[in-house]
């Protein structure tokens, strides 16, 4: 078989059913084989869209997303998408063409040192120098991407290697002496953790994206209910625990609920699972939860004691470790007093907004929630739209909320929605967007139309780069430097692509527009003209302790 055939055969063996990508000079041999392959190929309109789509596909399904691009600019266009997947620990395999082996380093046409460029933003990467190594490398890449703390792996394949012939040998086993993730928690540590939990008066569970990655949501629910502890979630953790559950305090951190932040700041025990104490969560570190002991469960030893000192580190897969922990914990804890305090916070500082006047973005999202009964997959762009989507939609299930967490990539939402819809065709997929972000990868509407991937895009159109404007309003004396946007007519724009466009300027039309959009068998843009200077509250100013919130009733 040729290298190109080996690649496709290997992808099939890894269970790949779809590739997002774009052709080019140095991947012609691969595309020639794709012509005859039964793997679905989604031709995007920009390689960044391919990377985000593969990422969204992975987040929605739990499978490894695959994207493919040519050398040089094709590969560098993938870079943001790869970095995005890396920051959020998303399993992805990115395949790039490279100039012919003997031209590497020669400044050849469309050459870039792609393994060099992506080294700090991939879990691992490969330059294939010999076609005999290709099958093994693909096997390893999928194994590395999907195990331990997942992440993107890149395979760079020179075009001559794609054409070279060799015997296809599929390695049944992966052997790497430098890579053996710890998946079960140390029994001694589990016992210590169980003891701390039994002694805690004010425990709190701090759940992150690791719960979703390891499908530990059932175990998490069992634990929370067994020890009657409140659950706060990171943005990546939304959906790990039902937002509708009485023990849920929603999201914590910079734009978290006030009661979530007060609860973690006053807890005497934090049980952190699959979360990494990111600065958006902890605020000022030396003021963060000073009286709390910390149990930190994470598959990545490097995440433990990175930002916050941990009393009981447990390295392992969240699902396994929570299972082990559940067996150790016998008596339920008494947290009645603790909940009295928490409920007082809930009452005093509810998540709220002032209605009236123009369309409020919070109202739009509440209506999206009600119209979809919380069953949709929501993707977001980055900024205010994203934070409102976190606050006002209640995520019941894991993998129902898809957003760029670590990297904060504007332009992620639409291609991610596309990937999610390809992975879950029976689900309603809605991208909650801003008028700024949506224009960063708007070309992917064409991909949606061309491939009949029906997604709904709710644009919260305020004519601003809203989050930056909010900071300028609050911290830069209302000096709106370069945050006012002149926008296209989103309805006409949608229509020119073959999508449906709906404009909504009055509150009373919001729900009808949503219902209409959901009923239409097409990709739909709903252009909500919202209150231009609405802010996301509550908010913790950068560098402050997370219980020093401003805005709203906080």
């Amino acid at each position, binding site marked *: 078989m040729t290298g190109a055939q080996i690649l496709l055969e290997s992808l099939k063996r890894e269970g790949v059913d779809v590739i997002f990508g774009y052709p080019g000079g140095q991947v012609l041999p691969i595309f020639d084989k794709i012509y005859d392959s039964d793997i679905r190929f989604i031709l995007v309109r920009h390689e960044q869209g391919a990377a985000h789509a593969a990422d969204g596909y992975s987040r929605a399904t739990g499978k490894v997303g695959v994207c493919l691009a040519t050398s040089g600019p094709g590969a560098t266009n993938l870079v943001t998408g790869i970095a995005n997947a890396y920051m959020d620990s998303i399993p992805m395999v990115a395949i790039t063409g490279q100039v012919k082996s003997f031209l590497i380093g020669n400044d050849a046409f469309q050459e870039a040192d792609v*393994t*060099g460029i992506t*080294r*700090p933003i991939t*879990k*691992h990467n490969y*330059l294939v120098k010999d076609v005999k190594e290709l099958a093994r490398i693909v096997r390893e890449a999928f194994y*590395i991407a999907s195990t331990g703390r997942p992440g993107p792996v890149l395979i760079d394949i020179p075009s001559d290697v794609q054409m070279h012939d060799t015997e296809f040998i599929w390695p049944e086993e992966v052997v*790497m*002496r*430098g*890579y053996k993730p710890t998946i079960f928690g140390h029994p001694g540590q589990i016992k210590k953790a169980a003891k701390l939990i039994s002694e805690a008066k004010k425990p709190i569970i701090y759940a992150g994206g690791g719960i979703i990655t390891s499908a530990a949501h059932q175990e998490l629910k069992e634990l929370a209910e067994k020890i009657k502890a409140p659950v706060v979630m990171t943005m990546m953790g939304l959906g790990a625990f039902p937002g509708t559950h009485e023990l849920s305090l929603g999201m914590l951190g910079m734009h978290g609920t006030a009661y979530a932040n007060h609860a973690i700041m006053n807890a005497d025990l934090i049980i952190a699972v699959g979360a990494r104490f990111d600065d958006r969560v902890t605020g000022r570190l030396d003021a963060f939860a000073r009286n709390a002991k910390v149990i930190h469960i994470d598959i*990545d*030893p*490097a995440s433990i*004691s*990175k930002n916050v000192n941990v009393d009981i580190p447990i390295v392992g897969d969240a699902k396994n470790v929570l299972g082990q922990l559940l067996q150790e914990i016998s008596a339920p804890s008494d947290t009645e007093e603790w909940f009295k305090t928490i409920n007082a916070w809930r009452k005093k500082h509810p998540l709220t907004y002032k209605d009236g006047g123009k369309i409020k973005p919070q109202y739009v999202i509440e209506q999206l929630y009600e119209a979809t009964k919380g069953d949709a997959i929501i993707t977001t762009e980055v900024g205010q739209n994203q934070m409102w989507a976190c606050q006002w939609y209640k995520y019941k299930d894991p993998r129902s909320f898809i957003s760029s967490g670590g990297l904060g990539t504007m332009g992620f939402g639409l291609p991610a929605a596309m990937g999610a819809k390809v992975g879950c065709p029976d689900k309603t997929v809605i991208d909650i967007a801003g008028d700024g972000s949506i224009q960063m990868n708007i070309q992917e509407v064409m991909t949606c139309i061309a491939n009949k991937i029906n997604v709904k895009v709710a644009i919260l159109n305020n004519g601003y780069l809203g989050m930056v404007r909010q900071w300028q309003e609050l911290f830069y004396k209302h000096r709106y430097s370069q945050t006012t946007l002149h926008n296209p007519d989103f309805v006409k724009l949608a229509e020119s692509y073959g999508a449906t466009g709906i404009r909504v300027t009055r509150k009373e039309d919001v729900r009808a527009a949503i219902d209409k959009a959901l009923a239409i068998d097409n990709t739909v843009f709903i252009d909500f003209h919202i209150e231009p200077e609405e802010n996301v509250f509550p908010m913790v100013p950068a560098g402050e302790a997370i219980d020093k919130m401003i805005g709203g009733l906080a």
Partner: protein
Amino acid sequence: MRHTIAVLVDNKFGVLARVAGLFSARGYNIASLAVSETLDPAVSYMTIVVEAEDERVLEQVKKQLNKLIDVITVTDFTKKEHVERELILVKVSYSTKEKAKLESLISKHIAKIVYHKGDTAIVEAVGDQHQIKQLLDALEQFGIKELARTGRIAIA
């Protein structure tokens, strides 16, 4: 504080860049780095000396090193009993009037003259960091024209 870290890695292209990248990404300067094959040609042994003020950041670097797929083991020798050595080559002036003085100095140290031509000599020495420093201090009076060091290697 200076830390000596030994890293066992797969002997593949790109590994050095990955390891070095972890240090440079955090603004750490590598004081010295020595790499060579082990008895198993598929494995290389790196001795890295790094200056780190913040123990926590160094702890992170070690954990991140461990995360690299090509890294097999990471050992921090800082608080461990170990043997470390460095080899240096020093080019010094070897004029007739200083000849006797240099030779007598050399004999008191761990060094030897391995080459000389005209009024220049090359001194070779192997020792621990203390011995190397002493020798270099002593050689200063002859005017060090050039200095090449291997960087530390360590084993425990």
